[in-house]
């Protein structure tokens, strides 16, 4: 979980850099070129397969672990007071993960599937024909409920990261009194800033559209 989790965390950064180009005031040119680059460059393509695999391992592993953990306590307690000894997020990574998974499926259907196999209109930059993913995104972000769903999912990501970020280091054995505060601070900042930035994009685009 830790290794795949950390890889997915690094993916979030790359993804965010791409998304931020949605805000460039160029009618989507840089974003579309970026999208094309991401879907055609052989290095990126190879990496993307690794990414798919990581997602799948992270999810399947989580399901297996949850099953093992349920089996480890078949008779439940009548009363539990988990809030007094652990954080809510740490106890609910499965629920948070499921929310993210639902989002992921819809998100992939809307953009990733469309980009790869859907009939997206094309635009021409400097004589090169490029799929106009920007417009697809722009249209999607004019619907308030879609934006709301997106933001809600990002809140889920944030909570998932609150625990997941530092937990990954603990699992890998990286627990050191000198560096723990650094890991925790970076983890918390990352968990707020990255999903926050993701969420800000559809909000800004929605506001622009109305």
């Amino acid at each position, binding site marked *: 979980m830790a290794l795949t989790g950390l890889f997915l965390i690094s993916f979030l950064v790359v993804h965010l850099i791409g998304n931020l180009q949605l805000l460039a005031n160029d009618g989507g040119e840089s974003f579309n070129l970026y999208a094309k680059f991401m879907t055609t460059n052989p290095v990126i393509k190879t990496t993307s397969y690794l990414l798919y695999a990581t997602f799948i391992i992270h999810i399947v592993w989580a399901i297996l*672990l949850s099953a*093992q*953990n349920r*089996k*480890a*306590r*078949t*008779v*439940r*307690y*009548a*009363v*539990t*007071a*988990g809030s*007094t*000894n*652990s*954080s809510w997020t*740490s*106890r609910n*990574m499965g629920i948070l993960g499921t929310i993210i998974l639902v989002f992921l499926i819809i998100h992939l259907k809307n953009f990733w599937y469309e980009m790869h196999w859907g009939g997206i209109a094309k635009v021409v930059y400097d004589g090169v024909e490029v799929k106009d993913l920007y417009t697809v995104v722009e249209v999607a972000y004019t619907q308030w409920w879609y934006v709301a769903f997106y933001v809600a999912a990002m809140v889920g990501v944030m909570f998932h990261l609150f*625990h997941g970020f*530092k*937990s990954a280091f*603990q*699992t*890998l*054995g*990286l*627990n*050191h*009194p000198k560096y723990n505060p650094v890991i925790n601070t970076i983890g918390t900042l990352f968990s707020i800033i990255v999903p926050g930035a993701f969420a800000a994009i559809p909000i800004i685009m929605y506001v622009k559209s109305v």
Partner: protein
Amino acid sequence: MRITLKVWRQKNTQDKGNFKTYKLDNISPDMSFLEMFDVLNEQLVRQGEDPVHFDHDCREGICGMCSLYINGKPHGPKQTTTCQLHMRSFNDGDTITVEPWRATAFPVLKDLVVDRTSFDRVIQAGGYISINTGGVPDANEIPIPKKDADKAMDAAACIGCGACVAACKNASAMLFVSAKISQFSLLPQGQTERKTRAEKMIAQMDSEGFGACTNTGACSAECPKEISLTNIARMNREYFTAKVGSDNV
């Protein structure tokens, strides 16, 4: 004080079990929680009923035998053993729910008594340094940095009560196992078998049916001896290096 107790009663491992409610008046706040149970049991015996069975022995917080899950927490509201919990930690009129440790690896034997021999088997798998009696070097032959000795002592303070397993939402035994692995990996005497020890103990832990660690930290927060999570991280390191570096196939 007046107390209402909701206590788990179960005749034996096969029995399904259920909660029973008992009312106690005249409870002194100076009583320990187990003494309150003594009072209940004396009352039950006088009425000809089977007393509530629970594990306990030293009643001074060190043997690790007592094991009650009180109001949703192992050993109750304070970070101590049940025998060191006193009734002054509760209020007059409280209802207190008492359950046994719940884990597949700790089957209930009767009422609140559970079988923790899985812990013994984990230790038997490698929680020792393989030396025989006699023929050892002088105690001062190998100096050990005080810091390492202290850290080893902090890990060795584990009393094996199983509160970590009881508290963990996954019923994981990582804190218990890591405490023993840490103690030995920090000491020069433990180096010889360092890799095989980690591999064997963890394999045994897994085969006992404990859950996996998701780093909630509940174990350490509830541990009466405040065993730290750093031990789990250390065990993870030991495990990775053992898996990569040992020639056990």
